């Protein structure tokens, strides 16, 4: 199911996302980037393994931690970074920054700065697909925190009743901002909530590319066959704080280091590819080097891009013929 070409694509996207996020961190600490920035480092396997199975005709709705989804859904690093820096060349003309980033032309219905805000929108993508009788799917990415929002309940219930081709992908990174899941959530496994909507719920190791890929493939097949949505919970961990300024009083340095050392999704997938002889070490080194090079070029592009012209600040509030 997971062929060699797809493996290399996933590895490439994971490396690009890692480079992007760690570069964004550095730029933030150097005051070259401002605002609310939520990094996806450590969670790369989910976006890459899911989006590997999507085309531009499939939709995603993303979250405030949306850079990874945006890149995996086809955004280029340079224009994405330009958007984070508010430049005119950014995907959203500098209006969105980190929290509303999207390349709409790639079927990305947007990062969403409101926790749980994207679930109904992804559900609407699924409704459009169903009404247009297309063999596509719509994916709602959301975190553990969003699973306690009303929109989680409303969207999954509606998608289940209408048997919409929507896959609800929960990225459980253990903390809703600073609050651990055990303190905020009635269940240990958010996937258990699927029972309340009469749909399958599945827990997977979100740092295991193969596990995420295969679980999503099952959910996608079900969706395309008209059987309705699936709730997929990917257990993962964010390496950085909730946002770039997070003092992280809610977890220990040791906890973070343990995840980094023992459960780095990129290292794990690299080991898998080498063990299964799906790629040579040199090939993977080359992918990593290419990602680093692309990122360096992206920084150059973004830093040297023009600021948006305030003369156009009122454009696009409405579509005008």
């Amino acid at each position, binding site marked *: 199911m997971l062929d060699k070409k797809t493996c290399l694509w996933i590895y490439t996207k994971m490396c690009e996302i890692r480079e992007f996020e760690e570069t964004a961190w550095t730029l933030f600490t150097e005051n070259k980037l401002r605002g609310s920035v939520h990094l996806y480092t450590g969670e790369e396997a989910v976006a890459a393994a899911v989006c590997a199975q999507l085309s531009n005709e499939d939709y995603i709705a993303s979250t405030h931690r949306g850079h990874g989804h945006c890149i995996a859904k086809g955004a280029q690093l340079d224009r994405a970074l330009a958007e984070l820096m508010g430049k005119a060349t950014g995907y*959203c003309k500098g209006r969105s920054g980190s929290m509303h980033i999207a390349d709409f032309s790639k079927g990305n219905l947007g990062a969403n700065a409101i926790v749980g805000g994207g679930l109904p929108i992804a559900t609407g993508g699924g409704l459009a697909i169903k009404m*247009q009788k297309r063999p596509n799917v719509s994916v709602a990415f959301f975190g553990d925190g969003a699973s306690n929002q009303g929109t989680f309940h409303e969207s999954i219930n509606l998608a289940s009743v209408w048997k919409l081709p929507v896959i609800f992908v929960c990225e459980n990174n253990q903390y809703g901002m600073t609050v651990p899941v055990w303190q905020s959530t009635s269940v240990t496994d958010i996937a258990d909530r699927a029972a309340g909507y009469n749909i399958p719920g599945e827990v997977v190791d979100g740092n295991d590319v193969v596990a995420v890929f295969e679980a999503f493939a099952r959910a996608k097949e079900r969706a395309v066959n008209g059987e309705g949505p699936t709730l997929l919970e990917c257990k993962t961990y964010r390496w950085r704080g909730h946002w770039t300024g997070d003092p992280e009083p809610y977890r220990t340095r040791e906890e973070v280091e343990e995840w980094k050392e023992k459960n780095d999704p990129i290292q794990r997938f690299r080991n898998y590819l080498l063990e299964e002889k799906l790629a040579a070490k040199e090939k993977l080194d080359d992918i990593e080097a290419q990602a680093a090079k692309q990122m360096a070029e992206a920084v150059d592009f973004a830093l040297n891009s023009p600021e948006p012209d305030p003369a156009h600040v009122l454009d696009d509030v409405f579509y005008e013929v």
Partner: protein
Amino acid sequence: MAKLSYAQAIRKTIAEEMKRDENVFIMGEDVEKLGGVYGCTRDLYKEFGTDRVRNTPISESAIIGTALGAACCGMRPIAELMYWDFAFVAADQIFNQVAKTRYVFGGNAKIPLVIRGQEGTGRGNAATHSQSLESIFMHIPGIKVVCPSTPADAAGLLRTAIRDDNPVCFFEHKVLYAGKGEVPDDPNYMIPFGKADIKREGSDVTIVANLLYVKHALAAADELLKEGIHAEVIDPRTLVPFDYDTIARSVKKTGRLVVVHEAHQNNGWGAQVITQVTKMVFPYLDAAPIHLGAQACPLPFNVILEQAVLPSIPEIISACKAVMHR
């Protein structure tokens, strides 16, 4: 021309647009067999099927958010809110998502979405089912705001809303549904947004009103005429975009302005109109404009109490006389 009720005009327009464009569909609470509380979608499911006339769960955030997502992906949804008061349940989806999606994503999203529903007092629905909320929607950039006061306006404005590639919030008044009027038969009859309608011409005082208060303003104008005062009654019809020019032109002629609406007076849309029009025609004003609206109090159930909170026809008459220094 056919004589139709306001509700029938809305139903007819929806049906014609669904026939014209297969991407147009309806979703909302009880829109199928019941046809909505006031019958605006009655029996449409028989003609178009339940795929295009979709009963939803009582989940306002999902109704609006799903309609938004579908609109971004090539459909043209008409999402019905049973009462505009329920918009607060879906406030994030309307104000943070629907209104902002096109702008924040760099103008790359097209959102042909109509959110329609009814509002207002008059049927004993009390505090959470009787509000007039259009001023709030006017405050958030990114949504068009439409308020028809007659069956013909309802038909012409709704068609424009459905064919618009932007989110439109369409405010109907529950008391207007049964009222009848002539509606053009033309299945392409459209009224452009941002064009106020002079409902009655006059030379002495300009009364600006919307929805049910257009009727009340016209009733006040009848009374004023008995005293020799010729009131001009203007219905802006759309609050976003707003036709300040037509009102400014009228005030240049009359020198006097009264704005009245059922929405609360405090921060009601009339305040914005008075600010703008005063700026435009200040030298022509013979008196400070007067702004009437519901008092700052949740709308009470008892009809005597409800009426006590709302501007009355005698109050409109008094306001007109006051600006005429009479």
